[in-house]
């Protein structure tokens, strides 16, 4: 039986970095969607939510079109600076895949939490002389804190298990981009069912624990 320590460490690294980004970006997006009225608001919500309903391979395909060597971003960089850069087939690519796939879970959960904050609290803060930014940091986010934490946990669980977009974007390179979900696939492919079962059990335990914890924290997207 091959060592599982590299895929485990890589998966953790990818999921943690992705979740940190999701926590910041997702909370900001959720706040804007919940509290601001602007044209295109529901369109932005739809766009952020798409990866939740897309097959992850499709999301991965679009990401390749964006950041691949021949992608929109890659060609723009080449045209502007004459450089060829690509995050493809690196662990950064795995982070990007996990980020994109898990962002909607965070945004949905955090938006619901922020929308449930009593507007009288928000008015009270303004009446006491506080700006919107101060009110957001000192009243809205603390009162929505449990829901936001629930979103972070769901996003982490989803990032840890990301497969489809990851395999499109980062590939399945042993010792470089083979996260645990990919390694489960590899193990089954080579008929190493024991190895696959150990990793599957790990995911089962982690996912159940995170879902229970998130459920206790508050309203969670069904």
């Amino acid at each position: 039986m091959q060592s599982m320590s590299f895929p485990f460490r890589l998966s953790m690294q990818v999921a943690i970095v992705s979740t940190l980004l999701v926590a910041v970006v997702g909370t900001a997006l959720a706040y804007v969607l919940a509290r601001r009225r602007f044209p295109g608001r529901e369109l932005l919500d739809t766009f952020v939510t798409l990866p939740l309903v897309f097959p992850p391979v499709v999301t991965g395909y679009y990401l390749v079109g964006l950041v691949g060597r021949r992608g929109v971003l890659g060609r723009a960089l080449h045209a502007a600076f004459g450089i060829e850069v690509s995050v493809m087939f690196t662990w950064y690519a795995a982070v990007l895949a996990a980020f994109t796939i898990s962002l909607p879970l965070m945004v949905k959960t955090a938006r619901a939490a922020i929308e449930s904050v009593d507007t009288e609290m928000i008015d009270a803060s303004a009446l006491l002389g506080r700006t919107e930014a101060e009110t957001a940091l000192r009243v809205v986010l603390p009162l929505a804190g449990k829901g936001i934490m629930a979103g972070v946990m769901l996003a982490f669980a989803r990032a840890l298990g990301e497969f489809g977009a990851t395999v499109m974007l980062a590939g399945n390179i042993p010792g470089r981009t083979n996260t645990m979900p990919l390694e489960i696939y590899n193990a089954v492919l080579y008929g190493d069912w024991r190895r696959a079962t150990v990793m599957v059990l790990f995911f089962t335990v982690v996912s159940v624990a995170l879902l229970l914890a998130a459920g206790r924290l508050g309203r969670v997207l069904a």
Partner: protein
Amino acid sequence: MRGVEVELRKRLPGFELDVGWAVGDGVAVLFGHSGVGKSLTLSLIAGLTRPDAGHVRIAGETLFDAQARVDVPTHRRGLGYVSQSLALFPHMSLRQNVAYGLRRLSAEERQSRVGEVAEALHVAELLDRRPHEVSGGQRQRVAIARALAPRPRALLLDEPFSALDLPLRREMRGVVREAHERFGIPVLLVTHDPYEAFEMADTMVVYGADGVVQYGRPDDLYDDPGTPAIRRLLHSADHPIAAPTPAIRIRRSPPLQREGVRA
């Protein structure tokens, strides 16, 4: 000019408010049945809702003027506001609640200001607790202390006592009266309770069910109500179980007439 002077128009779905009145620096009571726009008036004065037209002036300062395109944002209006729910921040201690509006002061000044209002409202010994750890009456006092701490231009009270039982309401009226005398700012109190209205008012602004608003000294209004609806409202205090609070629709076909009796 001192006191509070407003001219406000606001159209909402199924409801239209069109009022104008001026009161002095005393306690002014906005009195009427539920649903006639008293709370909406406070919300327009505070800038929580934007009027369609009109102006708001407090102590000579223009906070809103549709024609002159003045619209001071809520957080710079400098008004103390206490709503029925009180809106104390549950994740903060009462001390943090009271100090919340004092960001611009030094730590030392902040502490002395918190001490001053807490002592005036008799809540100094409660400050380390959280809102859910004290009684309803104590929460009221803290909410008023929090509103007064930043030395607001005026204190706006939107039926803050209606959830309390009678003895406590009587006590809170005394508290408001005391706070008014001590801090010397105009108070606008919204109520649908005739006893409360007559007990508290230096000036009364009566929102009649017929859409007519009349303002002046309570005695003058009582003796000389402008319309039958206002007479019924003011005289409902004579009959202990009167003062119903049905949902009232305002029909406002003729242009608004105002009976202005200045205090």
